[in-house]
């Protein structure tokens, strides 16, 4: 399978991260990727660069500071009015233009709706390999990116390489990688590049952007405490027990994939490989068996508590604490016990 890397790809060097910048802020997944990209670049002995695209030149210039403080050596910046709202066409053009000009060997993007929309178009334009939703990235002995992701509906893991094409592209979901520490004062260089595209040339127009009203929806991935239910909750009504515990703990609630498929809850509450990846301080899984696709979505939690009637459920293989019991019976009691402990203090305090 392994051939020599074609001559024209040998000049491709350095690790790049597409930095998702929208509505005046960098998406946290981009900072997580900068942390991982830094490790890959150090292993390869090359530089780490961020790509920063947007419409407001001054705001972008300010945001470069954050990109440097999270580990980048340089930033490729494209400021143009056509990059105001995310649209596939101008973003794909800007990214492919930068890649063809400066030739990175690795390009990482967040597996957000923006990143996935962009990555597929960029990889096809460049005719290179793209591995989606990686859970682990590494450099092998031959300087090749080893991208590990779940496969077969999340029942196994596979490691994928892009051997004879460059750049090697991969996306990673938010919260799969840890947030790297910020290094205040860390500096880097900015390379600015113009985009040769006029608004009249772009056929897709964004008429309006309607921000989500239920802001909580997007907070699940970054919540400190998460309680989730699975089929072991036995009915959609019983999910109320999951929500009640989450409420008492000031956390978020969610569920496993089968609950979405059964219509018990909406997809934005799904936790796992195809839903949200979480890294809370405390994760309580109630009536969830723990298939691999769920496991990869919660493994980053500091403490995993599993409640399940089946002592052989796979979730007990990766949970830290287990209760072999019916979650629909334990949850209300647990909620009450927490409520008592926490309200006693409120009176005392």
């Amino acid at each position, binding site marked *: *399978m392994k051939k020599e890397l074609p001559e024209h790809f040998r000049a491709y060097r350095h690790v790049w991260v597409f930095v*998702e910048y929208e509505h005046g802020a960098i998406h946290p997944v981009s900072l997580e990727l900068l942390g991982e990209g830094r490790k890959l670049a150090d292993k390869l002995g090359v530089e780490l660069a961020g790509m920063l695209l947007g419409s407001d030149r001054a705001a972008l210039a300010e945001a470069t500071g954050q990109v440097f403080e999270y580990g980048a050596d340089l930033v490729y910046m494209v400021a143009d009015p056509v990059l105001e*709202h995310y*649209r*596939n*066409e101008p973003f794909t053009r800007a990214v492919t233009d930068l890649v063809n000009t400066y030739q990175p060997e690795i390009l990482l993007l967040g597996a957000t*709706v923006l990143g*996935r*929309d962009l990555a*597929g*178009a960029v990889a*096809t334009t460049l005719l*290179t*390999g*793209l591995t989606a*939703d990686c859970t682990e990235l590494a450099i092998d002995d031959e300087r090749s990116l080893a991208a590990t992701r*779940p*496969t*077969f*509906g*999340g*029942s*196994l*893991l*596979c490691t*994928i*390489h*892009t051997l004879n094409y460059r750049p090697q592209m991969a996306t990673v979901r938010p919260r799969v990688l840890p947030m790297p520490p910020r290094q205040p004062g860390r500096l880097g260089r900015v390379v600015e590049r113009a985009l040769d595209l006029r608004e009249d040339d772009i*056929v*897709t*127009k964004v*008429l*309006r*952007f*309607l*921000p*989500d009203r239920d802001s909580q929806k997007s907070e699940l991935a970054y919540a*400190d405490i998460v309680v989730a239910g699975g089929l072991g909750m036995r009915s959609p009504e019983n999910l109320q027990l999951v929500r009640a515990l989450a409420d008492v703990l*000031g956390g978020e609630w969610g569920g496993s994939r089968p609950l*979405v*498929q059964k219509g018990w809850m909406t997809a934005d509450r799904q936790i796992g*490989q*195809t839903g949200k990846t979480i890294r809370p*301080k405390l994760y309580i899984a109630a009536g969830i068996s723990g298939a691999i*696709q769920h496991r*990869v979505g919660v493994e980053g939690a500091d*403490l995993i*508590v599993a409640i399940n009637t089946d*002592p052989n459920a796979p979730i*007990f*293989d990766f949970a*830290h*604490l287990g*209760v072999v*019991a019916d979650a629909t*019976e*334990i949850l209300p*009691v*647990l909620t009450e*016990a927490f409520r008592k402990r926490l309200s006693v203090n409120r009176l005392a305090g």
Partner: protein
Amino acid sequence: MHIVVCIKQVPDSAQIRVHPVTNTIMRQGVPTILNPYDLFALEAALRLRDQIGAEVSVLTMGPPMAEDTLRKALGFGADRAVLLTDRAFAGSDTLATSFALAQAIRRMGEEWGEPAIVFTGKQTIDGDTAQVGPGIARRLGLNQVTYVSAVTDIDPAAGTIALQRRAEGGVQEITTRLPALITMLEASNEVRRGSLPEALRAARAKVEVWNAAQAGITDMMKCGLRGSPTVVKRVFAPPARAVSAEKIDTTAGENSDIAEALIGQIYARQPALEGELLRMAAGY
């Protein structure tokens, strides 16, 4: 107007089991289903047909048995079905898959009129990559709109379409020009039940079966394993944690005792948590 819907036959992932000893996938007897996300794409196409009149073709690439999935789509009301099947496609990654599908769509365009819209689901449940739709769009020069939650307006004469799509932190209302490739979000519509006459028609309908040559594919270097820049080097089951979960004793005492024991263990393992919870409860 011609609309193409790309669909895929996928294993019912809820049924996949891994052999406990050999760690290999137990494929035997795993039932296949029409990728659930594709139903929303098919329904969006059928609604446009109801609204403005169109012909809806469904296309799938896969083994000969994927014909079942096409018949299911015909049963929902699709007008025709094309099965793209050839051993040369074996081992295709998303880049090679989008090449083959794009070629087949070109060929369908020659046969039944250039499609104004190509619909796909937002992703499949087996690969979960969401890459093939954008790949087809790029290869055919279609305007790409992913994660669409609603088709709000279409003007075939002007060649424009208005859509709502999921974006980071909100919804974008956009317009674009046809031809377009649209990937549909789950729950973006309610999928119709096929009628009895349609079910009968589907059972009798002819499914067009194309091999690579019949789809107009001549460059076999772009197909299958050879046309795939990504290489799977290793497939494995994730290692178990060295120590499995410490189980709370459930044999002694009431549920409330179990709850107290559990809370004690949680605080013991995450000492900072108790203080944080207390501060949260006190409204800090």
